């Protein structure tokens, strides 16, 4: 085992971490702010990929513009979903889990009926599909883009939540809905917007994952469970999700280096269960928060 291959594994781990993080970002916001277990998150990721595909294939929008466009489209879907269904279920967390699974079923089957089950591909500019070398380590350019977008989104969310009036309102509602409402904050509107924001983030993730993998109606399924684990381990906070994703990504890469990818995933899942045995509230849970 020489230094180069370890470095390679670490860099790969960072890339895996960024993928897990971007998949979990939207979930963190929706769970953290509204306490909704959104099982439709994978389907929203899938919708993001299909939005990018549609825009690129039928309208001819350049790929880089597809990313923000996916955000908008999926955010609108999220908005409709929140107004039409989720807003009636806020005090029934288990039912949000079930209802959103139903939504996922509908979205996946709907897309399958429209687009068929055959894989679609997103075309990216030539330069993205290349890779470059740092020392002896080969890095795919697109994975760097994913990392950059993830960092940008995290920064954006941080600014939104901690530097704007809207962010103060969201955090107030998170801490105590009734109290916030009695200070004149429209909690229902805050929930609606955070849900749309979370859905939009899933859309961005989807438009990126569509390039990393092929675009399929079921492509989102595999991300849901692991994204949830990141949120649960992180305790529902943004910082927690970031650290959980980083740690799991690196561990996954290191385990895979010694065994293989599937076995590494198994180890990660088991480690998470053991971790939650000792810290059921996750990494950074505030005292007295619902769990």
């Amino acid at each position, binding site marked *: 085992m020489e230094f180069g291959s370890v470095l390679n594994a670490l860099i790969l781990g960072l890339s895996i971490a960024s993928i897990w993080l971007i998949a979990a970002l939207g979930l963190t916001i929706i769970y953290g702010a509204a306490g909704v277990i959104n099982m439709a998150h994978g389907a929203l990721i899938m919708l993001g990929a299909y939005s990018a595909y549609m825009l690129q294939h039928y309208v001819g929008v350049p790929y880089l513009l597809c990313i923000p466009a996916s955000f908008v489209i999926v955010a609108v879907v999220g908005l409709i979903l929140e107004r039409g269904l989720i807003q*009636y*279920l806020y005090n*029934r967390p288990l039912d949000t889990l079930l209802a959103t*699974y139903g939504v996922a079923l*509908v979205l996946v089957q709907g897309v399958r009926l429209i687009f068929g089950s055959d894989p679609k591909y997103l075309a990216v500019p030539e330069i993205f599909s290349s890779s470059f070398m740092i020392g002896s380590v080969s890095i795919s350019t697109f994975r760097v883009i994913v990392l950059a977008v993830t960092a940008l989104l995290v920064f954006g969310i941080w600014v939104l939540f901690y530097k704007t009036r809207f962010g103060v309102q969201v955090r107030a509602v998170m801490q105590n809905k009734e109290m916030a409402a009695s200070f004149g904050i429209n909690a229902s509107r805050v929930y609606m917007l955070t849900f749309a924001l979370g859905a939009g983030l899933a859309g961005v993730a989807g438009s990126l994952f569509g390039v990393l993998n092929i675009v399929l109606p079921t492509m989102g399924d595999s991300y849901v*469970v692991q994204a949830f684990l990141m949120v649960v381990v992180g305790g529902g906070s943004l910082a927690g999700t970031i650290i959980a994703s980083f740690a799991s990504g690196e561990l996954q890469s290191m385990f895979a280096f010694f065994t*293989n990818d599937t*076995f590494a995933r198994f180890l990660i899942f088991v480690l998470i269960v053991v971790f*939650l045995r000792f810290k059921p509230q996750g990494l950074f849970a505030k005292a007295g928060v619902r*769990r």
Partner: protein
Amino acid sequence: MGNLYYNKTAQWIAYAAFFAALAIIPMRIDDDFLLNQLATYGVYGLLALSISLCWGFGGILNLGQGIAFGLGAYGMAMTMQMQSQTVENPIPPIMLNNGLDYLPYLWWPFQNTASGLIFALGIPTLFCAVFGRIMFKARVSGAFFAIMTLAMLSAFYTIILDQQAYTGGVNGITPPSPLRLGSFEIDPYSSVGYWVVFFALLIATVVAKLITQSSFGLVTQAIRDDAERVRFLGYSVSGYETVIYSISGFIAAIAGCLWVMLVQYVSPAQLDVGFSISMVIWAAIGGRMSLIGSIIGAFVIQGGQSYLGDAFLSTWLLFLGGFFILVVRFLPNGLASLVEAGLGLIATKSKTATSHEPNGAKPFPAE
């Protein structure tokens, strides 16, 4: 006269009628293939029953019932595979194909049919007991427990997929011949297979029903409604939760064994997340608070899937998803609660008609 729905005698009569109807089926049907298919619905009924027991009566939403089902199924498949190995040919082909020229320790207990069956049922139950104990002791509950069961399910799915030489990987295990118990062979394509499943479902349902009516069952229902209060009353909440979760896992393990007995096949697909969640959908639509409602939910949904779904699987699933959303939104206790409301309506009507009922009739415990 109160609501007939809560009347225990009426409930037992409904159960008897239901099983009598199921018992008539093999006498009326000659088609062995159809009987086999109907028997697999019985297995799904067992799974829905196990979910109803754990979720409807214990308040534990378990999205990973596929673990117990899958482990039971793998245990049974390994037992049946070993039955067809002879002295000259002691090693199953999946190992030889994967370059393994000895029988791994994992397979040793399954060389003998009796010990194989004990392990096939015991290991999933033991897993539920240990995993449940760990989780409930840490007071992981509600949606978080559901997520953790999903994580465990994914973990098992990946490990079974990965360990090809031991589990057959993605192709799974296909035992070449039906299950033999002693010198008796259970032909899955005959009424014998159907009757085995029928009696398993009958016994499991009666036992589950008795559990829900026992004082143990009443405590689990109290935990479902308010765990904190039950804890303050001095009950060991985690203990009760672990036991009901393990019983539910045991029933699912039986279902897994019977399923392999019927179809002679197992693969990681039985531990697929979607399959485990569909068990929850059966119980949710049928009515998780009603054992029989959940079983009927499984029959109707799986039946609909195979009869309507072959041609329009996507449309069917789209419809099912939409219907599921409506049920969760408007009928959180499933279609059984419609029956409950309907019988309640009749009860109030007859009450106003006679209006000489003694006031304050004592409330019946919920089913």
